[in-house]
């Protein structure tokens, strides 16, 4: 008899006589072991680990060819033809052992450049690229890149491979093709056209200063789709053949007809359906091609089992090329096809899968009823799906890929929440999705639990158990908070309580609206959720709040570059109110000007490069006969203001308040002097360590040591100290009042999006020391409500109290990171206690919490020996990434974050 059984026997015997024993004695307290992933998964993931990020030119070639062959056509139809042809001609690759197939390109971790969006990068480097391509291949010894260093990233050129954007490898022989295609777009890429009109704004030079000083990071054109929830309803309900028929019916009915009072929209409908027909044909052909490839592979396959598998793939692909799926596997394959089709039509990240376990439940249920699938078979498919989603790469400009995304494309899968009827939405299939994510640990899809009091406890426990794997998912979102935000922000567009229940995460943390649509399958009607809006993460991009405060203190001049970012305010800052006033003046100007530029960027994108697959899938585009560009979606007020470094900013304000204004220990000039001199320390760039625990003194350190100590010891956010928390509330009040005054290119109000993604690294790098004692160049605090690393001295419950000092449903999101030592959550009791802590935060109205359950020790080891930790994952901003594929500044920051270890 094992010890635990014996212990429970003893306790049970005693329990009968002793009422004080309040433990439940009917279960063991050691958790069952997590089963290994399927051998099929193991085999394929081990190939994945060896894969290099690769771009190739097949899709750009065909897109470019057909686009120019259709010069003069209506933009959405021209787009549909070009993109449809590209999909229909790209080489379909199927690897032995796969059940679920399809890839972005012919390669495993493939992507491709979009010269029609951004050609200047390639054109500027055309000569250099060509020279590199002409150069003889390097010596044999250098030919293979170093495995493990940077994982799948191709950080430098070698042999016949040219590194693009320090991330992707491109074959030398394809360089001339890239250069040739890029030249077509020299004068008409989205980038160039938006640049032309942005520059016509009289204040454009100010926007340029924001960008040049990295006060604001990124342009919208670079990544115009994503941070939204896809919607798989159309093909799941109708199948592609029926969609084409419906297009024909609509064309017959309305082409050439305008509605009364038509401005443009009435006539647009006809072109819309023409375009939808073209793109649907392309999607269908793409699926058929995979079927044909599978047949061709089957022909030459000697192994009968593998031959059968190829044949099965062929059946699946040919069926979904035309009809409503007839099995769970077909339905999963079809959603994956749609997913790839959307992420291939624009550079994008954060195309969220949405609540897949609710969307596909009817298909799974039927297979179970028919006895054609077992739970284990479904889990295996879902494990393979994880590899597929993890393999989605994004080629955007270098800054976007490395800087914002840390290489992740944030294909977020949400679980839980409420169904249309207001009851829990959790389905049996969602348990299997969690199970697959627990067994088969990959970075994507990251999982997000929409926590609602109605969510079954056993589901929450299962998700909490998964969380303990240390891979950073699932993250936990507050369902009621998200719904409240939907009802608040989308009220004027007619948001209903039912639609509010369909919300989930677009991208890593961007709450995005959805709706339920009736799926007819298996003789019944199921209301399935899906996205109902365009991108909810494009707008005024990552604005460094601490940097803006620095500019208030420097009278508008960036000390690092000498650039005059704002007109000098020339005000003597005598009180905190003065600081707030000038800060808000600068903020308002920044928003006004950035907004105009962003609006032009997105407007040119939607006019010249209208999305076609997204316009087919998103409700209510097909019903209205309008593209997403023409506000075909049900909800359109999705454009945001993105902030970075909130807590660093609040802490700096708290230190100014305390040391300069309340206690008057130092004058503002003395403070500014200390900040400019980095408190007498070397900068992070000089030391190469971006973590706050490394500071190397210079000769001047003595002069500033007192002010430095006072700054470090000033009150910090996250300690349930109203002195600081009130500043956070004030900030939220000011900003939530500003947002509705800003109107997007859809004429709709903006809102606040408070996630840093990975920009807290680069934006911290360009910011001088700040009054909270953070040294120059050091990463900002991650998240928007989690304390700066090692500044929370009163424990996690105090952190939660500070974090919820304002109502999170006022904004799109609020980000909380918690690092927990694995020993604190061991065993079943540990799982329950992890759930307790999650629930504690949710009860307070916290919007989001995510956990890194890996010890700092392990992470430090992994930093030293990346080769031994190829599969180690951590949670960064709102997503999970392989440790070896993220940059050092972010690694340092993750290690330094406070760890709760009892």
């Amino acid at each position, binding site marked *: 008899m094992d010890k635990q059984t014996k*212990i429970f026997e003893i*306790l049970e015997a005693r329990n009968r006589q002793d009422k004080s024993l309040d433990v439940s004695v009917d279960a063991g*307290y050691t958790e069952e072991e997590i089963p290994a992933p399927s051998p099929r998964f193991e085999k394929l993931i081990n190939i994945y680990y060896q894969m290099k990020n690769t771009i190739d030119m097949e899709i750009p070639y065909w897109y470019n060819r057909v686009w120019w062959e259709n010069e003069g056509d209506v933009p959405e139809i021209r787009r549909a033809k070009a993109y449809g042809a590209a999909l229909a001609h790209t080489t379909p690759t199927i690897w032995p052992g796969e059940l679920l197939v399809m890839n972005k390109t012919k390669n495993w971790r493939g992507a491709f450049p979009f010269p029609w969006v951004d050609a200047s990068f390639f054109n500027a480097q055309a000569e250099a690229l060509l020279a590199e391509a002409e150069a003889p291949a390097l010596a044999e010894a250098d030919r293979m890149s170093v495995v493990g260093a940077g994982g799948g990233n191709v950080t430098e050129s070698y042999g016949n491979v040219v590194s693009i954007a320090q991330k992707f490898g491109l074959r030398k022989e394809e360089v001339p093709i890239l250069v040739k295609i890029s030249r077509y777009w020299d004068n008409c890429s989205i980038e160039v056209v938006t640049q032309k009109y942005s520059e016509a704004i009289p204040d454009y030079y100010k926007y340029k200063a924001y960008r040049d000083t990295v006060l604001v990071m990124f342009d919208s054109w670079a990544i115009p789709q994503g941070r939204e929830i896809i919607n798989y309803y159309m093909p799941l309900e109708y199948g592609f053949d029926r969609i084409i028929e419906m297009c024909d019916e609509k064309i017959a009915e309305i082409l050439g007809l305008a509605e009364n009072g038509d401005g443009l929209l009435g006539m647009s409908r006809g072109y819309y359906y023409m375009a939808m027909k073209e793109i649907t044909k392309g999607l269908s052909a793409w699926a058929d091609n995979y079927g044909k490839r599978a047949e061709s592979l089957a022909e030459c396959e000697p192994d009968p089992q593998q031959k059968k598998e190829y044949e099965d793939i062929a059946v699946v692909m040919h069926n979904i090329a035309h009809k409503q799926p007839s099995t769970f596997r077909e339905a999963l394959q079809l959603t994956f096809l749609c997913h790839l089709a959307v992420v291939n039509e624009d550079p994008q990240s954060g195309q969220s899968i949405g609540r897949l376990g609710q969307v596909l439940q009817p298909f799974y249920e039927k297979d179970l009823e028919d006895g054609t699938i077992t739970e284990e078979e479904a889990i295996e498919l879902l494990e393979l799906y994880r590899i597929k989603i993890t393999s989605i790469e994004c080629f955007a400009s270098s800054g976007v890929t490395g800087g914002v995304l840390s290489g992740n494309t944030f294909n977020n899968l949400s679980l839980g929440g409420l169904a249309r009827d207001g009851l829990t939405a959790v389905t049996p299939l969602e348990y299997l999705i969690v199970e697959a994510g627990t067994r088969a640990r990959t970075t994507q899809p990251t999982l997000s639990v929409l926590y609602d009091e109605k969510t079954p406890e056993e589901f929450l426990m299962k998700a909490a158990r998964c969380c303990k794997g240390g891979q950073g998912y699932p993250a936990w979102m507050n369902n009621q908070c998200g719904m409240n935000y939907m009802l608040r922000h989308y009220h004027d567009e007619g948001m209903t309580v039912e639609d509010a229940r369909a919300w989930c995460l677009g991208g890593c943390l961007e709450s995005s609206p959805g709706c339920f649509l009736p799926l007819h399958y298996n003789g019944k009607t199921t209301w399935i959720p899906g996205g109902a809006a365009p991108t909810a993460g494009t707008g005024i991009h990552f604005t460094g709040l601490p940097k803006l405060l620095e500019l208030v203190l420097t009278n508008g001049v960036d000390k690092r570059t000498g650039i005059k970012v704002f007109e000098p305010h020339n005000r003597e800052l005598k009180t905190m109110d003065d600081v707030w006033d000038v800060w808000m003046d600068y903020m308002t100007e920044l928003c006004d000007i950035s907004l105009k530029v962003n609006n032009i960027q997105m407007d040119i994108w939607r006019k010249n490069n209208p999305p076609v697959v997204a316009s087919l899938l998103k409700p209510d585009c097909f019903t209205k006969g309008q593209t997403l560009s023409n506000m075909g979606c049900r909800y359109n007020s999705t454009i945001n203001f993105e902030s970075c470094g909130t807590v660093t900013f609040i802490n700096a304000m708290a230190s100014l308040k305390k040391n300069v204004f309340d206690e008057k220990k130092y004058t503002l000039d003395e403070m500014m002097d200390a900040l400019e001199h980095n408190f007498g320390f070397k900068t992070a760039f000089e030391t190469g360590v971006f973590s706050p*625990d*490394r500071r190397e003194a210079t000769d001047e*350190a*003595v002069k500033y040591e007192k002010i430095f100590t006072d700054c470090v010891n000033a009150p910090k956010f996250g300690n349930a100290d109203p002195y600081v928390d009130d500043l956070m509330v004030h900030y939220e009040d000011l900003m939530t009042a500003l947002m509705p005054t800003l109107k997007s290119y859809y004429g709709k109000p903006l809102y606040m999006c408070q996630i840093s993604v990975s920009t807290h690294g680069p934006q911290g790098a360009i910011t001088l020391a700040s009054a909270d004692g953070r040294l120059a160049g050091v990463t900002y605090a991650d998240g928007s409500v989690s304390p700066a690393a090692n500044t929370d001295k009163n424990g996690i419950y105090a952190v939660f109290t500070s974090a919820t000092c304002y109502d999170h449903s006022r904004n799109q999101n609020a980000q909380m990171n918690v690092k927990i030592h694995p020993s604190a*959550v061991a065993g079943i009791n540990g799982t329950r*206690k992890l759930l307790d802590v999650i629930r504690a935060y949710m009860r307070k109205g916290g919007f989001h919490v995510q956990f890194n359950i890996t010890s700092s020790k392990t992470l430090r080891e992994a930093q030293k020996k990346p080769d031994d930790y190829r599969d180690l994952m951590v949670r960064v901003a709102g997503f999970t990434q392989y440790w070896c594929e993220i940059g050092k500044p972010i690694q340092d920051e993750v290690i330094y974050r406070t760890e709760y270890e009892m």
Partner: protein
Amino acid sequence: MSAEPTGMIFDIQSYSVHDGPGCRTNVFFTGCPLKCRWCANPESWRPKLQFMFADRVCKWDQGCKACRDACPHGSIQFDENGKPSVDWKICNDCETIECTTSCAAGALKQTVRIMTVSDLVNTLRRDYNNWGSDGGVTFTGGEPLLHHEYLDAVLKECKKLSMHTAIETSGYATEEVFMKIFRRLDFAFVDVKNMDPEAHKWGTGVSNERILNNIRALKRSGWPGRLVLRQPTIHGFNDSDENAKRLIEFMNENGLYEINLLKFHRLGQTKWEQLGKEYEYSDHGDMTPERMSELQDLYLDNNIACYVGDDTPF
């Protein structure tokens, strides 16, 4: 004006998961009547304002000398490399600890704060929102019973609010104090470090008589709470079969059936150094997992539920 009692608290830890049922807030009192030779929290022995010098986080190697003028008593000295040290002969009697405000690295750290009943209860009320249905507060230390007046006042407020209350105690107090505090407790860990009075005295500075008597009295009283005995298990001190058998006998006599053996660890060693004390258990006392398992079996065979380390059913 009657002064509100105050307590000397050296730490409050939230989300504590190994000190009673559910998620808890641990309140560490300073001051202890025992002086265990292996103690993991030696900073909690004396009930007074104290500080620690954590030279591991000191930034002297990065050129910091911010504490050079911080001690008015001249205790802080720098060696030829610029590394600071403190003179414990001076510091042990210091009541003012001015030095701690000079350090930005957290190396010179105040470890004790004085809290009123309402200070502490307000913190617990804040944390009450987070414990979940099983959790609560655990008073530990140091020795919480040393502050029984204050603790009783705090417990009274906790029970008004229906909080779940627990204690970790050496059990070393008068029976009156012991019983007074326990009537407001739902859960208790009481340490029985050695069954032999002499050995107990050698290891902890006091005999075990009072502790065992308190446990007997508690059980006699029909106290409705849950009592789990605890034993830090140290090789060469209390890991013999003989000691275990005597403890089993004691437990059987008193209707006790749960014990938690904690494998000796050396996590407190740096604190001894930081406090300027020599740590005697730096190279012995370790238990093998095999021996822990044997001891566990011994208890289980005698129908006592024995848990090792964090592996508990609560």
